[in-house]
C-alpha cells in the first residue's frame, strides 16, 4: 500500500516539476501577478461617488467577490491548459514508457497525473487568493478568513476540470478537449445567470405573461443535472459575503461535481487501461 502511494506521489511530483516550467504556466503566472498589482490599487479604500463617501467594507466585499471569481476562473483555464497536453507530452518525451516499464500500474500513473495537476492548480489559486487576502487585511484592517475557506471550496471545480480534460484529451485533439471542458463551464455559468434572472420579480412577470413556465421547468432539470461549476463558485463566494448556507441547495453543487468526477474518473482509468503505450 505504501509503495502504491509513494509511486503515485512520485509521479505527481514529476508532473508538478515538469508543468511549472511550461510556457502556459509561466504566462498565466505573469498575467495573474499583473492583475493582482492592479487590484492592489483598489484595496486602498476611501471610495467616493458623486461626492459621497462609500462604506469601504461593503465595497471591498463586492470587490473581493469579483476578484475571487476572476482568480478561480483564471485557474480553471490554467488547469485545463496544463492538463490538455500532459499525456501527449509524456508520450513524446518518453516518460510514459519509462514509467510504465517499471512495476507501476496504469491506474497509479493516471492517479499521479491527476494528483499532480490538481495540487499544482490548487496551490496556484490558493497563493493568488492569499495574496489578495493579505493585501486587503493590511490595507483595511478587515480580516476575512472566509476568503481562504472559499478558495479551498473552489478547488472542487479544478478537480473536475483536470479529470475532464485528461479524459477528453484521450478521445479527441487536445485543444478540442480543452475547449469542450471550458464550454461546459461557460454553459454552467450562463445557465446560473439565466435561472437567477428568471427568479427575479421582473423575470417571473415575463414568464407568466408569455405562459412558458412549463418550458422553463424542463430546462431546470437540465440546469440541475449539468455540471454545477458555477454552483460551487456561488456557494464559495457566499462565504465571503457571509450569506450563510442554504441547506441542500448549498450542498447539491458539491454532490453534483463529485458524481461527475467519479464517473469521468472511472471512464478515464478505463480508457487509459486500453491505450497503447508508444
Amino acid at each position: 500500500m505504501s509503495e502504491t502511494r509513494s509511486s503515485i506521489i512520485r509521479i505527481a511530483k514529476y508532473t508538478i516539476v515538469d508543468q511549472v516550467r511550461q510556457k502556459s504556466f509561466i504566462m498565466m503566472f505573469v498575467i495573474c501577478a499583473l492583475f493582482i498589482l492592479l487590484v492592489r490599487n483598489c484595496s486602498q479604500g476611501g471610495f467616493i461617488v458623486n461626492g459621497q463617501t462609500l462604506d469601504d467594507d461593503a465595497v471591498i466585499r463586492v470587490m473581493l467577490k469579483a476578484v475571487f471569481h476572476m482568480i478561480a476562473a483564471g485557474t480553471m483555464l490554467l488547469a485545463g491548459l496544463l492538463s490538455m497536453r500532459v499525456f501527449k507530452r509524456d508520450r513524446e518525451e518518453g516518460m510514459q514508457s519509462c514509467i510504465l516499464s517499471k512495476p507501476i500500474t496504469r491506474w497509479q500513473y493516471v492517479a499521479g497525473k491527476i494528483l499532480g495537476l490538481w495540487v499544482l492548480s490548487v496551490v496556484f489559486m490558493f497563493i493568488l487568493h492569499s495574496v489578495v487576502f493579505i493585501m486587503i487585511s493590511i490595507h483595511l484592517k478587515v480580516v476575512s478568513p472566509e476568503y481562504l475557506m472559499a478558495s479551498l471550496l473552489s478547488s472542487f471545480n479544478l478537480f473536475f476540470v483536470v479529470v475532464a480534460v485528461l479524459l477528453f484529451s484521450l478521445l479527441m485533439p487536445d485543444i478540442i478537449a480543452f475547449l469542450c471542458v471550458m464550454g461546459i463551464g461557460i454553459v454552467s455559468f450562463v445557465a446560473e445567470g439565466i435561472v437567477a434572472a428568471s427568479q427575479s420579480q421582473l423575470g417571473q412577470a415575463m414568464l407568466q405573461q408569455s405562459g412558458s413556465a412549463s418550458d422553463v421547468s424542463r430546462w431546470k432539470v437540465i440546469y440541475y443535472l449539468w455540471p454545477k461549476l458555477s454552483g460551487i463558485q456561488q456557494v464559495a463566494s457566499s462565504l465571503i459575503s457571509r450569506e450563510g448556507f442554504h441547506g441542500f441547495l448549498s450542498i447539491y453543487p458539491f454532490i453534483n461535481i463529485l458524481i461527475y468526477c467519479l464517473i469521468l474518473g472511472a471512464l478515464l482509468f478505463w480508457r487509459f487501461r486500453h491505450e497503447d503505450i508508444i
Partner: protein
Amino acid sequence: MLMIKLNTVTKKYGSFAAVNNVSFSVETGEYFALLGPNGAGKTTIVKMLLDFTQPTSGSLSINSIPSTQAASRTAIGYMAENHRIPPHLSGWQYLQRCAELLNISRSDATDQCRRIVRQIGMEGRENSKARTYSRGMIQRFGMGAALLGNPKLLLLDEPTSGLDPIGIREIRQLLESLKDQGMTIFLNSHLLSEVEKICDNAAIINQGKLLVKDNIAALIKNGDTLEDVFVRLVKG
C-alpha cells in the same frame, strides 16, 4: 527456469496480424536475439511483454508472472528503440528519476547512477541537458537507465540504433560483461554481426510468424553467417 514465455500469441490491428500465433520461451541467463526485417513484429512482442499493448489472443509471462501484472516488471530493464529523454532533464536527473521509480534508496541511487555513467562512457556529460545530446548519447543513457536496480532481465529494442561503430562496440562489451552476472538478455536487433558475437540463441520472425528458434551455433553451420541464414529464411 523460464524467464520469458510466449504462448500462442497473436496481435491483430484490424485484420492485419502484426504477430501471428507465436510461441517460444527464453531461459534464465540466456542471451536471446529476436531477429526480423522491419515490421516483422519484434517491437510488438516487446510491447506485449511490457503490457504496453494487449495481445488479441494468447498469453505472455515473465518469470512465471503474467505480463499483465505490474509485478512481472519488477526486475526488468527496458530500453526502447529510439529512446527519448525529456529535453529539460539532464542525463543524471533522468537516471535519478528512473532510480526513484524503482524505489531505490537515495544514497544507493547516487552510487548506482555514478557507476552507470562510468559504464556507459558519459562521465563529464551527465549534467548537460538532454536537448544537447546526440542520438547516440541518448541511447547510452537509455541503456544506463535499463541497467539501474540490477535487473534480472534486459529488454533491449535496437540498443545500438544511432550509435557509431565505437559506441556499438562499447555496448557489445558492456552486454558481454553482464553475462557473468547471470542476467537474461532479450535483444531486438538488425545488426546480425553483433548478435552473432553476443547471443547464444536467436529466433527469426517475418510478417508476424516465427520462422525458426535455435542456438546460433546450430543456425550458422556449413560456414554460413547469421546474415546468410537470415536472408535465406526471410526471402523464403
